[in-house]
């Protein structure tokens, strides 16, 4: 299990990296934490002709508080840095819940926040979290910059809107309004294993206890993370009740997801998990929002 030969570039600035990506086109690939790319190369499932290693570019790794109460996270920020950041804990407790479930400590020391999003694994947590938190993604190429909303970033399993000469540079998470609660719920075979199904919710209440926003995303049950329309339609404008939450769970599990059967679980079992996890996630998020 060894990768095929490839060319290796180790730029020391973003500009230099973009120059390489522009020259290499389809032959080139970004190497971030390597925790998904290198195993795929070891199996020879991935056979890039050249790698552009971002690990020597310190300016791509940071966690910066923004004026609206949110955070700007540089793509090369290690998962373990996000996991242990006081700013993240304070502004996005949802991430604090999620991070320890991603792989194992040694992998989080290397894997990157942006790399996980760019990788677009349907079983990965961070693509879904970027959607549920309404992230804005900064995409760079030589001589150009564009911003993509997380909701529009993922096209299919391991497929995003990124062109070969582009790279994800920054993930901006907008601040959350007061009386917002969140909750992450997952079931996996063992700690650190990919989830069989997972649900993340972010909900906001007004002073009268009515729901003003309900975003809920489901993981491992479709080609891309699935943002629930039912959650928004049924919950917003109402006081959340167990009946309303159960209705969301029912619609989400029966109509909104498209789970597959594999060696880990059947599609039917995944539907069952979603039904349970939606209820847990939404009711916990509302409890937290009411505090």
């Amino acid at each position, binding site marked *: 299990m060894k990768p095929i030969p490839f060319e290796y570039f180790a730029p020391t600035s973003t500009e230099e990296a973009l120059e390489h990506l522009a020259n290499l086109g389809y032959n080139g690939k970004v190497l971030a934490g390597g925790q998904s790319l290198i195993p795929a190369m070891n199996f020879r499932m991935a056979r890039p002709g050249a790698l552009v290693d971002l690990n020597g570019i310190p300016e791509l790794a940071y966690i910066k508080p923004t004026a609206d109460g949110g955070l700007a996270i540089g793509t090369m920020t290690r998962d373990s840095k996000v996991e242990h950041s006081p700013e993240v804990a304070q502004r996005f407790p949802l991430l604090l819940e999620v991070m320890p479930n991603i*792989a194992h400590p040694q992998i989080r*020391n290397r894997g990157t926040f942006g790399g996980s999003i760019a990788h677009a694994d349907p079983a990965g947590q961070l693509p879904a979290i970027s959607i549920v938190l309404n992230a804005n993604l900064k995409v760079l190429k030589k001589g150009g910059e564009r911003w993509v909303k997380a909701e529009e970033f993922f096209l299919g399993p391991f497929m995003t809107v990124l062109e070969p000469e582009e790279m994800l540079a920054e993930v901006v998470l907008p601040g959350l309004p007061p009386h917002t609660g969140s909750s992450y719920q997952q079931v996996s075979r063992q700690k650190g294993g990919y989830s069989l199904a997972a649900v993340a919710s972010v909900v906001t209440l007004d002073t009268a206890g009515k729901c003003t926003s309900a975003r809920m995303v489901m993981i491992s049950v479709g080609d891309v993370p699935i943002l629930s329309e039912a959650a928004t339609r049924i919950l917003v404008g109402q006081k959340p009740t167990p009946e309303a939450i159960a209705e969301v769970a029912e619609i989400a599990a029966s109509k909104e997801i498209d789970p597959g059967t594999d060696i880990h679980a059947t599609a039917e079992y995944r539907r069952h998990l979603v039904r349970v996890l939606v209820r847990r996630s939404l009711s916990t998020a509302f409890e937290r929002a009411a505090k």
Partner: protein
Amino acid sequence: MTTHTIKVKVNGVEYVREVEPRRLLSDFLRHDLGLTGTHVGCEHGLCGACTILFDGEPVRSCLMFAVQANGHEVTTVEALGTPEKMHPLQEAFHEKHALQCGYCTPGFLMTLKPFLETHPNPTDEEIREAIDGNLCRCTGYEHIIEAVKLAAEKMATRS
């Protein structure tokens, strides 16, 4: 295919070597430097046998290329202790029967060394979290957890 010259400090010794970009760090340590203490189980990040310290932090050496270690510092199990003067973790693994075949042991030790430095008095739960990325097919883990607690005691009384 072009090779790259890398300069890397391993266990305090500086090495300068020519490597092909596709050389895994684990293979570089074992085959180019002859440091066979680092074990290789799966080469896709699952087993943890290849865990080393990269600039002081535990990482999978099978999921890095040697060329990426240029200018960095690597610590392998060879630096932990000697048969005459074992690290408290090694003593504790020995005393608590925390290994049978020993294949997984270097990875556990290199994961646990920095863990005990930041968690001098760990709970069972913290220990289980710390080693959730290391597989052992022999021990059933209970003896490993006992050994970690014993190592923590040894380290506390010695410092």
